[in-house]
């Protein structure tokens, strides 16, 4: 079943001479429970594509459907609810609040959703246990190692039971061994819980672990043949 469907979406930034076309008409369909790698060099438009799919930004042209709904119809409270409940985010820079505790960081989506404190704690601890971080719950986020930080970030993405997890270079700031652990966690969630996984990366090894790769080059979809031709 299709969970996200993009048809010829375009996005540009700036005006006049400084205008930059980040996406020039990209079509892409993502099915439920699959894992997809969006691959491309920096500046290719892969991050922009992910932001549009995650409804963090609005498309300029084309159509984007989330499930059966046109993204143009998702506004205000519905948009916030969708970002909060259906999507989880994992970023290269982790984006943990440094002085808050690990648990407080993890339950942030639940706080935003207005979940009462007792339940927040229960669900936050459950998410931390899955990622073997329960003993660090009370530590400050700054006291964690890089791998632990990214696991905390994954716990945060997971805490609200999302349908889709968007991961932007999740292993970019980690050494190979820790990166592998984080990858394993993400793919296990995809396999065991059926969470759709969309990973933006320029790491070919990580991309090859996904069910499917979607290559982006200069704001356009490029097929494997193009890549082969260039190689």
């Amino acid at each position: 079943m299709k969970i996200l469907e993009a048809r010829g979406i375009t996005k540009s930034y700036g005006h006049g001479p400084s205008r930059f076309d980040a996406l020039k008409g990209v079509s892409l369909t993502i099915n439920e429970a699959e894992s997809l790698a969006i691959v491309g060099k920096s500046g290719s438009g892969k991050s922009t594509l992910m932001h549009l799919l995650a409804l963090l930004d609005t498309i300029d042209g084309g159509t984007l459907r989330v499930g059966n709904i046109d993204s143009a119809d998702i506004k205000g409270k519905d948009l916030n609810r969708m970002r909060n409940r259906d999507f989880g985010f994992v970023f290269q820079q982790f984006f943990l609040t440094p002085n808050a505790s690990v648990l407080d960081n993890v339950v942030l989506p639940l706080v935003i959703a207005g979940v009462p404190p007792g339940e927040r704690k229960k669900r936050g601890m459950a998410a931390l246990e899955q990622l073997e971080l329960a003993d660090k719950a009370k530590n400050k986020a700054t006291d964690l190692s890089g791998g632990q930080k990214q696991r905390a970030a994954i716990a945060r993405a997971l805490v609200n039971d999302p349908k889709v997890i968007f991961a932007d270079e999740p292993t970019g700031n980690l050494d190979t061994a820790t990166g592998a652990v984080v990858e394993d966690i993400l793919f296990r969630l995809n396999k065991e819980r059926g969470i759709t996984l969309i990973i933006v990366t320029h790491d070919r090894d990580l991309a090859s672990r996904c069910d499917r790769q979607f290559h982006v080059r200069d704001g356009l979809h490029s097929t494997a043949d193009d890549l082969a031709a260039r190689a």
Partner: protein
Amino acid sequence: MKFTDILTSAISNTFRSKLRTTLTIVAVFIGAFTLTLTSAVGTGVSRYINTQVAAMGATDVIIVSKADDAGAEGPAKYDPAAAKASSSMAGPPGSSMGMLAHSDLDEIAATSGVLHVEPVVLVAPDYIEFADQGKYELALNPNLGITQVDLAGGAQLDNPGNEPQILLPSTYLETLGMGSPDDIVGSTVGIGVTSHAGAQSSIQATVVGVQHETLLSGGSGINQNLTDKIKAIQDTGKPSNAVEGFIVATAYFDEALGTEHAQGIKDSLAAQGYTGQTIQDQLGTFQSVINGIVGVLNAFAVIALIAAGFGIINTLLMSVQERTREIGLMKAMGMGGGKVYALFSLEAIFIGFLGSAIGALAAIGLGSLLSNVLADTVLSDLPGLHIMQFDPGSVALIIAVVMLIAFLAGTLPARRAARQNPIDALRYE
């Protein structure tokens, strides 16, 4: 996000950058501290005046004088019936103050609403004498005949009364060797009066009470009976054709008919060329001077608060800048712009609350201490005056106003935070 969650995160965010928050709070503190003190001075002084005077003022009298002719061109036409003394009385520069003649009194008495009129007779006794302590000058305050004073002992003057009575200020007691106020009440003093012909004689009067010294005019008060007796002696040998004049007269009205009724009488008096003022009117002028001074002091405190408001703007703008990524993250996780706005506004309000609450508490502590020390030292001659009094209502109002200023200061940074685009915020380096 629930309100309590927004509130608790706003409060904990406030303490994230402790030094910066503390400095901003200090700025708010200074403003709130000053404002609390100045308003306490206003409250203290007004309350003092109120207890000293407003409660004592007879509410059923209008004090009538001739309207001065400051606006008139040149001297008025000579009228032999008008009082002769007028030219010698000092009025405001450039005007002459008219005296009330007997014909004026009749006219005032005929004004509708006026029950009866009594001229305020100014008598000038020579001395006061108690036992064998010697003779001292006696200053009289003609207004004390119609007001109720703040007593240190004894009772108010009995008007009209059948016996001559005098009410002394507390400062007279020591000089005259009279002991405590309670000792002296009921004793007899001698008052020396010189007749128009030049012969000096003495009248006995009973001390009925002792008055606390006040901010307002001092002097002793005497009742109508004693006034009449002194006047009788002073007028002995006066030529019968001398024109008698009075500076002021008191007109009595029925106070049960309300302030509009009193205003109506004042208006009719004004139409006839007289100035009528109730005691409340006279005190009102005094109080508006005090209020003016306190108002200026308050204005300075408000200026300090406005400066503190810019401190809040600055602090929060820095905070928004620093937390751009965090705001972006929260928005990416579905936090609405309105809630982000509320979060930063509450932070501003909380800073305002902390600064103003601590400032008000410090002002209350220090002010009460200072006020008590002053009351025992510099201001000990004015018993009952506590220069600073803290009214819970006005302290609460000050805290509320400071929080409002803080909220207004927070709107700019809060808007900036609320409008952030999650993508730009997350990309921000």
